[in-house]
């Protein structure tokens, strides 16, 4: 029986200790990382993933929201949704809402942010003033704008009638052509402060020397806006556009307060429709299927937009 020399044995021991301590370090590192990540992940799992997965599960059943039993119906709820005229109409309204929101929210807010950033005095006043609507609850905003649009006593119609433009005084929330644009304007008013602040933050990070160089090259204000401001705000714009799209697709409170989806389904969107189906009609699984469809559309929009953005970059 041969014995390894004591020096070699010592080296082996050292190696083993080194490996052990490396492994221990790795475990320690992993635990440290996990201890930072776990609370967030746990919250996310409990409050987001679990309800989402459960919602998908419910959409394959015929649960009424309260009974202890439910039957598996497979894709039946989804099949019914494709035949449901009101659901399809609601989806269409959601898409119209997205288009109008993008048009009314992104460009005007960006222009406003640029103008405010140029103001020499009272910048804080304008920032605070324009941000003010964002701190109001949507219930307040809804009631406020309902009164503004009131066909009889609302200031818009009163003004139009006073200046002799009676024919332009409409029932803003009662006519099919106007109801969604009117709601989008109210929604825009409630949220533009938030996007304005995002744009203002983005503008602060634009290198001022680029503007100086452009000035020397004789660039005009529109040219500078188009060739410097817009590209510099690319990331902010992406965030804002994504947020506008997501908000437009999942908006509920304002519509519920102002029209409840009416009149005659003219402002029905998926969120109001599924709310009625779930809580007024006890069709929880059917409503859940509708929500899943909306969720898929929101995710698809967001992924699609980000994919397009990355490709163009």
């Amino acid at each position, binding site marked *: 029986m041969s014995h390894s020399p004591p020096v070699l044995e010592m080296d082996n021991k050292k190696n083993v200790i080194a490996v052990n301590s490396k492994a*221990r370090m790795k*475990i*320690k590192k992993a*635990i440290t990382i996990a*201890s930072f990540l*776990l*609370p967030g992940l*746990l919250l996310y799992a*409990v409050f987001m993933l679990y309800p989402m997965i459960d919602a998908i599960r419910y959409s394959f059943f015929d649960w*009424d*929201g*309260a*009974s*202890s039993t439910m039957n598996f119906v497979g894709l039946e709820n989804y099949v019914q949704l494709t035949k449901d005229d009101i659901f399809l109409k609601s989806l269409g309204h959601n898409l119209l809402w997205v288009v109008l929101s993008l048009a009314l929210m992104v460009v005007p807010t960006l222009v406003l942010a640029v103008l405010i950033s140029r103001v020499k005095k009272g910048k804080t006043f304008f920032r605070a003033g324009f941000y003010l609507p964002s701190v109001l609850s949507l219930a307040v905003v809804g009631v406020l704008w309902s009164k503004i*649009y*009131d*066909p*009889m006593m609302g200031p818009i119609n009163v003004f139009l009638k006073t200046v002799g433009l009676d024919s332009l005084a409409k*029932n*803003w*929330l*009662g*006519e*099919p052509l106007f109801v969604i644009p009117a709601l989008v304007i109210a929604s825009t008013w409630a949220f533009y402060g938030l996007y304005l602040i995002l744009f203002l933050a983005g503008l602060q990070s634009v290198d001022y020397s680029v503007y100086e160089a452009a000035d020397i090259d004789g660039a005009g204000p529109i040219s500078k806006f188009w060739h410097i401001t817009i590209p510099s705000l690319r990331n902010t714009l992406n965030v804002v556009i994504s947020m506008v799209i997501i908000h437009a697709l999942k908006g509920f409170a304002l519509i519920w307060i102002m*029209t*409840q989806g*009416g*009149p*005659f*389904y*003219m402002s029905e969107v998926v969120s109001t429709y599924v*709310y*009625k189906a*779930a*809580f*007024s*009609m*006890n069709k929880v699984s059917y409503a859940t299927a509708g929500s899943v469809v909306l969720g898929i559309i929101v995710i698809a929009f967001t992924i699609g937009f980000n994919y397009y953005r990355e490709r163009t970059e």
Partner: protein
Amino acid sequence: MKGSKHKISLLLVILMLFTVACQSPTSSTDNKTKTDSTEEKNETASGNSDALDLMIPNFYNDVEKQQWESVVEKFKELNPGIEVNLTTGDVQVESGKLPTLLQSGIEPPDAILMNAGPGRVSILSDVELIQPLNELYEKNNWEDALRPFAYDLISKGENIYEVPHMIDAIGMFYNKDIFEQHGVEVPSTKDEFLKALQTLKDGGVAPITVGARNGYAIGWIFGVMMESVMGTEKVEELLYGDGKWNDPEVVKVAEMLAEWVEEGYITKESVTQTQADSKFRFLSKQAAMESEGTYLITDLADQNLQDSVDMFMMPSFVDGKTAKPVGGVGQTWVVPTKAINVDYAEKWMGFILSEDFSKIVLNFPDYNFIPASKASMSIEPVGEVLKSAMKQIEDGSGLNPSVFIGVEAKEAYYQNLQGLVGGLVTPQEAMESIEKGAEKDRANGFSLK
């Protein structure tokens, strides 16, 4: 390693806290027995097992609030030792708030006063959110304590889930001073009624205001019109029999509604007007008439308008018939399945059907409900408008469809009536859509037969 152990322990504690926090107080107790519930009595937030928790609709004004306080005082006087916690809230099924409250797992009140009707109550009873009261009916002989008309309406099915609180009487409220100004008398025939509408319109006043944005409010006037144009029997056939919403008689009523909007008898703007807006318009004398129930009486008292507002039923358009105010059971008591103090709820509902209750409420000069109890039939109310309404429904009332139809039909009913007022749908299309909703309800097992 010791540090890691601490971290893992900390995480486990957090996880445990989450699990506990995410558990609702009554979750996983779906099949709890009454014994369990009684044991839980002592663990309620109030810690007062002798309290009866009641939930009633939001007060419209201070007059209602004071009336309820007096009623509760009387109950406490008759039942010493029982505390009463009276809370108010949205008790409409249509808004989804009541089903959500009962589904939420939060400890529910012992009894809830909700907007009545099989179309509403069934939404809760079908999914066992409220409990059947057959045993209590038998034990307390409540059948005999109710007006026969009210008992008939709630006892069609195998189980009884409600104790009617009041009978609705929806008709036309009118501003007497506006009528006088324009030389209009209370109409008693179809022609007189139509003439009154035209006279008021020609005089530059809005003849009828409607809060069509709230489905139930446009349902009130349409129900009144159905009663007048079709007659009670035809409406009964539609709701209880084989009648269809797209039958020519019903389409005729829809055409009349559209025509009245077209003629300017009902303003087109009504489509976006809430019931509150409409009531404001009526009470501030901007419109001559509004279709309402007796609930308006407390508002009249609140604004000192008792002398200038009165009520009449739209005359029958059918020769030789008399139209009755529409309604049915207006508000009704239900007991949530998870209610704890059912015995106290029983005492309360017994009190509501008693002579004591009727005496106290009908002696308020501005009381706005017609009690559903038989005891109230022999008591004359002090208030003039209520007296007149009670007289008109002595032999029963007409039917307000909103109360008697299933969920699919009701959603279609509200939306399509709004569509008619807004000129967004034709009468025929509107009635076809409601019939489609009713067909879906029938397919889902909804029936009043």
